């Protein structure tokens, strides 16, 4: 079942950072829930972003700012986890920033970052983040639902996918001087995935502007998919009829699928996806990886009838 009453959601589902998100804010999120409900979205989705506490099962406290901003995969700044934090703030200029929205839509446009974001209410969403390398974090994002931005462009019925592109600029992104991947980085979502209320265009973490190493000024967050789907430093959003050629999928088609839904049943060809190391959990502890990274109730319906081994 996709739609559930908020009190059906296990408290372990999502945990807000309590020190950060005070109770007063829940009222605001309650209003957001009502707004989402009127948009036809399951009310539980909004509620689960505000789900409280984690008394039972495994706790999901958010990772620290330090962890989130020093341990990154952002090959545009080097292939070591510490490279982005070291290099990105030096060379990436997140302002001024322009995002082009085009393709199969009635109202294409080029937006300055502020014009893209300002019309929308920035929301706080604490999501689990699961890397394809079998580690995970919990990240308190700030951002706007992607669907709101897409709706403004008025996609045509022929638009079946959304393609995202990262900045291509070897001066700002020195890692692009080496052909580790086929630059610029490209990712894509099916239209229903892109319009899903959980899908976020993140602009910040812990209430602060998105750091360069985390994909400033604007990145995608799709919490039920592996991390590499969450494309960073986006400069273009394009509606297409064909499935976009996503970078890691092109690079190693048998290892990284287009869908890349978190799935403990389908292993990466070289390593198991059944369990994960939660950053900050301490030594020698693995958690079981959850189907769709724990968001199955909200998203599994979109993949009903699909062979998830084939469309991994």
């Amino acid at each position, binding site marked *: 079942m996709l739609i559930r009453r908020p009190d059906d959601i296990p408290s372990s589902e999502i945990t807000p950072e309590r020190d950060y998100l005070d109770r007063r804010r829940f009222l605001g999120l309650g209003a957001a829930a009502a707004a989402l409900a009127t948009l036809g979205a399951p009310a539980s989705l909004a509620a689960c972003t505000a789900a409280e506490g984690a008394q039972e099962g495994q706790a999901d406290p958010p990772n620290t700012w*330090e*962890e989130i901003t*020093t*341990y990154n995969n952002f*090959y545009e700044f080097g*292939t070591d*986890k*510490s490279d982005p934090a070291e290099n990105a703030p030096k060379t990436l200029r997140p302002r001024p920033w322009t995002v082009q929205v085009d393709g199969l839509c009635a109202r294409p446009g080029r937006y300055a970052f502020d014009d893209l974001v300002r019309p929308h209410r920035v929301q706080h969403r604490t999501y689990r983040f699961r890397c394809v*390398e079998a*580690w995970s974090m919990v990240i308190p994002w700030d951002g706007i639902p992607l669907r709101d931005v897409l709706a403004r462009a008025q996609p045509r019925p022929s638009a079946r996918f959304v393609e995202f592109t990262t900045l291509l600029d070897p001066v700002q992104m020195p890692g692009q001087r080496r052909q*580790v*991947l086929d630059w610029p980085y490209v990712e894509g979502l099916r239209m229903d995935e892109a319009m899903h209320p959980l899908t976020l265009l993140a602009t910040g973490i812990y209430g602060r502007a998105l750091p360069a190493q985390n994909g400033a000024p604007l990145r995608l967050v799709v919490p039920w998919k592996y991390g590499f789907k969450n494309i960073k430093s986006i400069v273009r959003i394009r509606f297409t009829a064909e499935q976009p050629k996503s970078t890691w999928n092109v*690079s*190693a088609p048998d290892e990284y699928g287009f869908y890349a839904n978190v799935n403990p049943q389908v292993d990466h060809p*070289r*390593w*198991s996806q*059944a*369990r994960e*190391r939660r*950053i*900050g959990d301490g*030594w*020698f*502890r*693995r958690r079981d990886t959850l189907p769709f990274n724990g968001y199955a109730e909200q998203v599994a319906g979109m993949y009903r009838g699909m062979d998830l081994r084939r469309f991994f």
Partner: protein
Amino acid sequence: MLKPAVWIGGLLPLALLVLAGATGGLEADPVKDLTHRTGKAVLVLLLCTLAVTPVRRLTGWNGVIAARRPLGLFAYFYACLHFFVYLGDQGFAPGYIVEDVLERPYVTAGFTALVLLTPLAVTSTKGWIRRLGKRWTVLHRLVYAAAVLGVVHFLWSVKKDVREPLLYAAVLALLLALRIPGWLQARKKKTAPRPPVRVRGDAPAV
């Protein structure tokens, strides 16, 4: 001078590890950091071990042979540490570990390398060298297989950026290539009359 240098070099990775652990210098994913650090220590020390014979041949410095056993044993020590960290990373869960070793080629390669190195470490004592005689030399050729498997293990574990494993592969290839003249020479000698008896205590060159 040689012995202290070998000991310092052999203990350096451990010292750096302990220092990083004590001062919060490990990465946000400390188990992965530990795995990588110990794994690289194994490869570096194995390559050093394999460099001893070519260095001896090229420089004529026979004393360097004394470095070989401690270097090999240090390599084995870090291999054990690496394996222990891996076991811990799997929560010491036998089911997952057996599946990994059997089904994931890079784990299989690494595990096999460790298995191959084990008898070499055990038979590294003077007593075993004496007892095994000529067979000791044959047995210790396993180090080549272990080194190749170790580098393959690294190469297969990497997601995309293969520069570092390829560097190790290149050094290993060089060290093996440097042995070819020696092997050819030894072959010639085999067809010739028996060579003079080897001096005692001088372990056969690997």
